[in-house]
C-alpha cells in the first residue's frame, strides 16, 4: 500500500510538520517500502551472505521442507529467501523486545509524570533524539512525543511480522529490506526508551565522567542481605533503590545486577553493583549468594525459578514478558505475600513495581540471616571431591560445549587439585551448563567452577548516555577528514569465542591508536574484566569522553542509540545537513564520511542482530565474533570486483572510486587478531582526506604487522595517492606498491551514493 493523502496529513500532524525547526525531508515515518531503493542500493554492493543453520524449513505444516540442492519448499521458497525470512523473524524479536521495553518505560513514566513531562537532556545535548528526528521527522519534546515514536514502531511492526507468514514475501532482497526496516524501528525504540528513563529517573546526561562503579561477583558484600536483579528493564530495580532510600536501608542491603538492568541501576545509583554479563548469570545464581532474585525482562535465563529455589533464595518475577506461570499478587497485602514466600518458598509475579520493591527488600532482610550458611562458595577441596569420577577420557562434556572448550581436561585436573585449566575454561565459558548436563558422571561442572574463578573487583564507569553536542562539534571535522581514525562501538552480548576480556584487549588496542571507543551492554562489562599491572581497568586508564583515544561506557543495550545518534549528529551538527525525515541523506553521509564501526564480539541475541542490521542501513559496518555466523546472514562485497561507483557531489558525475570502502557491511572474523585489523579497515571512508587516510593506514599497517607479521595484503586497495602513505612505512610500502602494480586512484571530496539509484533526495541536498 502506498501512503494516501490522509495518512500523509496524519503524519504531518503527529510530527508537527509546521514547527519549522528544519524543513520536513522526503521520508517522515517511512513505511515498509519507502526506503527500499536505498536498501537495494546497499544490497547491490554488499550482497547478503547466507550460512544456513538448518537445511530445512519447519515453519508451516506443509513442511518440513528440504531446501537442499536448489529444492524449493511447498510454498515455493528457496534456501536463500528462507534464510532472509529467518533473519526478518529474528530481527523482529529484537525490535519487539526494545519496542515493548520502550512502551513499558514510557507508559510507566506517563503514569507517574504525565505525557507533558519535558525532555531535557541537560546543557550539553540539544539534538536530543537524532534517530527519532531523522526517521520520523518529529523532534520529541515530552514523554507524549516519545510515545508517538513507539506507536510508529508498533504500527510498522505488524506489517513486517505479517510478511513472515507462509506465502508472503518471496524474494530475499525484499526480506532484507524489511529486516533493515525492523532495524530502523528498533533504533527508534532504543532511543525513545533510553531518553525516557534518562529524564524520568534522572540518569546521567550531559556529564562525561560518570562515577566508577564496582563490578564482578567478588564485589558483592554477601554478608549483607543481597538482592540480585536480572534483565534489561530497570523499573523494578529503580523502585527497589527508591524503597531502600526511603527506608534508610541503602547501606544495609546489597543491590547487584546481571545484564543491562545492572547498567541502568548503577546509572541511577552508583553504589549498586554490577555482577557481570549474561554469561555469568547461571554461574552466579548457582553459587547461591543472592537472597532474593528478581527477574524483569529480556536475556533472563529461563530456569531461574528452579535455580533460585535450589539455592533457597526467594524469587520475584516482575514482567508480563516473563511470568513463569506464577501467581500475580499485586492486589494482595504485602504481609500475605511475604508469608507465603518465606514459609512456603513460593515464588510470585508482581507487576506493580512499587509493591514488588517492598516485597523484595523485606524478603531479603528476612531471609539473609537464615541463609548465611549457604552464601559460601565451593572450596577447592569440595570441588575436587565432586570431580572425583572424571578421568577426562569420555569427552562427552566437550562434545556438548557450544564454545568448544576442553572441559574434560579441566575437570580431570581439578580432580587432582589443579584448577589452572578450569580457570581458563571459566574465562571462556558462556555459562550454558550443557557440559554438566551431558556429563556421564553428573559432575556439577558449573558449580565446580566456583573454585576456579577469580573473584576480583573491577571498576567500570557508569553508563553516560548521550554524546554531547559540543563533543560532536569538536570531533566532527577530524572524523570526517579521517584524522581521527574511527569511532568504534563495542556492543552486544557475552557469547564470546575466546576469553571474556578479549574485548578489553581490542578496546585498548584501538584506544591507543586514537580511535574513539564506545562500549555498551554486556560488552562494556566484559571490557572491565581485565586489569593492567597497576590493577587498573580500561575505564580507569582512559578519559571517558567522546574523543580520540578515549573510552566511553554509554550504558545498557538501549544506550546503543546514542552512538548511532552521534554518527547522525556529525552530519547534522557538524556538517549542518538537515536530518528531519531525511534518512537517506544521513545514511549516505555516514557511509561515505563517518568512519564508524560496530563490533559485536559475543553476539547471541536477536536484539543484537536487529541493532546490527539497523546500523548497516545507516551505513555503519558491523564486525561480529564467530558465533555471529549462526545468525545465518552477513553483508559482504566482493572487494575489488564489486561496484564502487559513486557520484561526485560537486561535478554530479558518476565516478568509479575503485576502492572497497567500507569493504563489508557485516562480517564475521574468526580471531580477535583478525578482528582488530578488520575493524580498523572498516573505518576507511571514501571521503577521507589524504592526511586522514594516511593516519588510518598507519593504524592499519601497524596493527597488521603486529598480528599478521607483514604489510596488509590488500594495502593497494586503500592507497589512492602517494600522499596517503604513512611516513614511517614509506619505503616498504612504496616497494610493495610497485611489486603489485598499484596505480593511483581518484579521491573525492564529496562522494555520495545519492544519484546512483532512484531516490527522492536530490543530489544537491548532499552539498551544504
Amino acid at each position, binding site marked *: 500500500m502506498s501512503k494516501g493523502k490522509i495518512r500523509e496529513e496524519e503524519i504531518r500532524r503527529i510530527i508537527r510538520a509546521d514547527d519549522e525547526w528544519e524543513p520536513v525531508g522526503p521520508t517522515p515515518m517511512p513505511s515498509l517500502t519507502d526506503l527500499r531503493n536505498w536498501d537495494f542500493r546497499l544490497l547491490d554492493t554488499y550482497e547478503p*551472505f*547466507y*550460512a*544456513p*543453520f*538448518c*537445511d*530445512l524449513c519447519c515453519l508451516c505444516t506443509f513442511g518440513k521442507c*528440504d*531446501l*537442499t*540442492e*536448489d529444492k524449493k519448499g511447498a510454498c515455493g521458497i528457496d*534456501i*536463500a529467501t528462507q534464510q532472509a525470512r529467518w533473519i526478518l523473524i529474528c530481527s523482529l524479536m529484537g525490535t519487539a523486545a526494545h519496542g515493548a521495553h520502550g512502551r513499558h518505560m514510557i507508559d510507566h513514566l506517563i503514569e507517574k509524570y504525565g505525557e507533558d513531562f519535558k525532555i531535557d537532556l541537560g546543557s550539553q545535548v540539544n539534538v536530543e533524539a537524532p534517530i527519532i528526528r531523522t526517521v520520523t521527522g518529529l523532534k520529541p519534546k515530552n514523554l507524549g512525543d516519545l510515545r508517538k515514536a513507539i506507536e510508529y514502531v508498533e504500527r510498522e511492526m505488524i506489517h513486517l511480522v505479517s510478511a513472515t507468514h507462509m506465502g508472503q514475501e518471496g524474494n530475499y532482497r525484499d526480506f532484507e529490506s524489511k529486516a533493515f526496516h525492523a532495524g530502523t524501528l528498533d533504533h527508534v525504540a532504543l532511543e525513545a526508551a533510553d531518553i525516557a528513563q534518562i529524564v524520568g529517573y534522572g540518569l546521567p546526561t550531559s556529564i562525561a565522567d560518570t562515577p566508577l562503579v564496582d563490578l564482578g561477583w567478588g564485589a558483592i558484600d554477601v554478608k549483607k542481605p543481597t538482592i540480585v536483579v536480572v534483565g534489561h528493564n530497570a523499573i523494578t530495580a529503580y523502585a527497589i533503590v527508591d524503597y531502600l532510600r526511603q527506608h534508610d536501608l541503602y547501606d544495609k542491603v546489597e543491590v547487584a545486577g546481571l545484564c543491562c538492568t545492572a547498567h541502568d541501576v548503577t546509572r541511577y545509583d552508583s553504589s549498586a553493583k554490577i555482577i557481570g554479563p549474561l554469561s555469568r548469570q547461571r554461574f552466579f545464581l548457582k553459587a547461591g549468594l543472592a537472597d532474593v532474585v528478581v527477574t524483569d525482562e529480556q536475556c533472563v535465563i529461563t530456569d531461574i525459578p528452579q535455580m533460585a529455589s535450589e539455592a533457597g533464595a526467594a524469587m520475584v518475577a516482575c514482567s508480563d514478558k516473563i511470568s513463569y506461570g506464577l501467581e500475580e499478587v499485586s492486589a494482595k497485602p504485602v504481609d500475605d505475600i511475604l508469608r507465603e514466600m518465606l514459609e512456603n518458598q513460593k515464588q510470585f509475579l508482581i507487576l506493580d513495581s512499587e509493591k514488588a520493591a517492598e516485597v523484595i527488600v523485606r524478603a531479603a532482610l528476612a531471609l539473609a540471616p537464615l541463609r548465611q550458611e549457604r552464601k559460601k562458595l565451593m572450596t577447592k577441596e569440595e570441588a575436587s571431591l565432586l570431580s572425583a569420577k572424571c578421568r577426562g577420557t569420555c*569427552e562427552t562434556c*566437550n*562434545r*556438548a*560445549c*557450544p564454545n*568448544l572448550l576442553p572441559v574434560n581436561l579441566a575437570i580431570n585436573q581439578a580432580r587432582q587439585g589443579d584448577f589452572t585449566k578450569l580457570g581458563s575454561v571459566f574465562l571462556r565459558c558462556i555459562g550454558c551448563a550443557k557440559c554438566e548436563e551431558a556429563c556421564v558422571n553428573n559432575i556439577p561442572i558449573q558449580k565446580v567452577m566456583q573454585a576456579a574463578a577469580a573473584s576480583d573487583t573491577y571498576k567500570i564507569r557508569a553508563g553516560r548516555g548521550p554524546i554531547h553536542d559540543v563533543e560532536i562539534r569538536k570531533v566532527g571535522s577530524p572524523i570526517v577528514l579521517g584524522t581521527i581514525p574511527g569511532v568504534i562501538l563495542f556492543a552486544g552480548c557475552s557469547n564470546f*569465542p575466546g576469553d571474556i576480556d578479549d574485548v578489553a584487549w581490542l578496546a585498548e588496542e584501538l584506544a591507543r591508536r586514537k580511535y574513539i571507543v564506545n562500549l555498551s551492554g554486556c560488552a562494556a562489562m566484559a571490557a572491565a574484566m581485565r586489569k593492567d599491572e597497576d590493577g587498573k581497568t580500561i575505564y580507569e586508564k582512559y578519559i571517558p569522553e567522546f574523543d580520540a583515544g578515549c573510552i566511553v561506557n554509554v550504558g545498557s543495550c538501549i544506550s546503543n542509540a546514542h552512538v548511532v545518534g552521534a554518527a547522525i549528529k556529525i552530519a547534522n551538527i557538524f556538517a549542518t545537513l538537515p536530518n528531519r525525515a531525511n534518512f537517506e541523506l544521513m545514511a549516505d553521509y555516514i557511509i561515505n564520511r563517518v568512519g564508524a564501526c560496530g563490533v559485536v564480539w559475543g553476539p547471541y541475541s536477536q536484539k543484537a542482530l536487529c541493532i546490527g542490521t539497523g546500523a548497516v542501513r545507516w551505513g555503519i559496518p558491523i564486525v561480529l565474533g*564467530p*558465533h555471529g*555466523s*549462526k545468525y*545465518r546472514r*552477513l553483508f*559482504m562485497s*566482493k572487494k575489488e*570486483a564489486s561496484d564502487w561507483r559513486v557520484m561526485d557531489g560537486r561535478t554530479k558525475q558518476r565516478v568509479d572510486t575503485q576502492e572497497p570502502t567500507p569493504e*563489508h557491511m557485516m*562480517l*564475521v*572474523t*574468526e*580471531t580477535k*587478531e*583478525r578482528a582488530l585489523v*578488520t575493524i580498523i579497515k572498516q573505518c576507511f571512508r571514501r571521503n577521507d582526506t589524504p592526511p586522514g587516510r594516511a593516519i588510518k593506514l598507519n593504524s592499519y599497517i601497524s596493527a597488521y604487522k603486529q*598480528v*599478521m*607479521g*607483514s604489510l596488509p*595484503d*590488500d594495502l593497494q586497495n586503500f592507497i589512492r595517492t602517494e600522499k596517503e602513505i604513512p611516513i614511517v612505512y614509506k619505503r616498504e610500502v612504496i616497494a610493495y606498491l610497485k611489486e603489485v602494480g598499484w596505480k593511483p586512484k581518484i579521491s573525492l571530496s564529496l562522494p555520495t551514493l545519492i544519484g546512483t539509484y532512484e531516490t527522492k533526495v536530490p543530489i544537491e541536498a548532499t552539498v551544504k
Partner: protein
Amino acid sequence: MASELMTMPYYKINVLTGTKAAKVVSEPVEAARIIDKATNPLYVFGAEVIDSLVGDRLLIDFTLEIAKSRNIPICATAHVKKKMMELGVLPDSIYDIIEIVHFLKDKNWMGVRGKGFHDLVLFTGVRCDLAERGLSTLKHFAPHLKTFAICRRSHPNADFAVPVITKTEKWRVYLEGVISELGTVKA
C-alpha cells in the same frame, strides 16, 4: 544406502538437521584419492593449524605437506599468515574464512591462482562451529565445487569429512596416511 546414514559430528552444537550430509572418508587412501582427482584444489588453513599439536608436531606441518605434495595453493585465514611466514612459507592468499567462502560461492571467480573456480576445497583448522557455517554456505550456494573437511571432529556440512577421531595418535596416523597415499592415483 550409505548416503542415507549421517554421522554425528564431534561437537553436538553442529548437530545435523540436514538431508544432505557428508560422506565420511574413513580411510586415508580414499582421502588421498579425492584430493588427487581434483583439478584445481584449494587448501584453507584455519587458526587452529598453528595452535594445535598432533603428537610432537604442529598441525600445520602436516597440512603444509599435503598442500606441497600436490602443489595445492593455500589460503591462510585468521592470523595464520604470521606463523606461516615464521615457518618460511608464504600463503597464496589471505582472506578470513568467511571472505574466502564468499568468493568460493562465485563460479566465475578466477580462484587464488587465476585458473578458474576451485573444484575441491580442503579445510583444516577452522574453528569447528564457524567451519560448519561456511561449509553450509558452500553446500547450498556452491554446487560447482566439493568440500573436504580434514578435521578430526568431523563436519556434516562438508561433502567429504573425516570421521570423529578422538585419539591424537590415530589422527596422526590418518594425516600421515593421507600424505603417503597422495599421488598414488592419477589425477
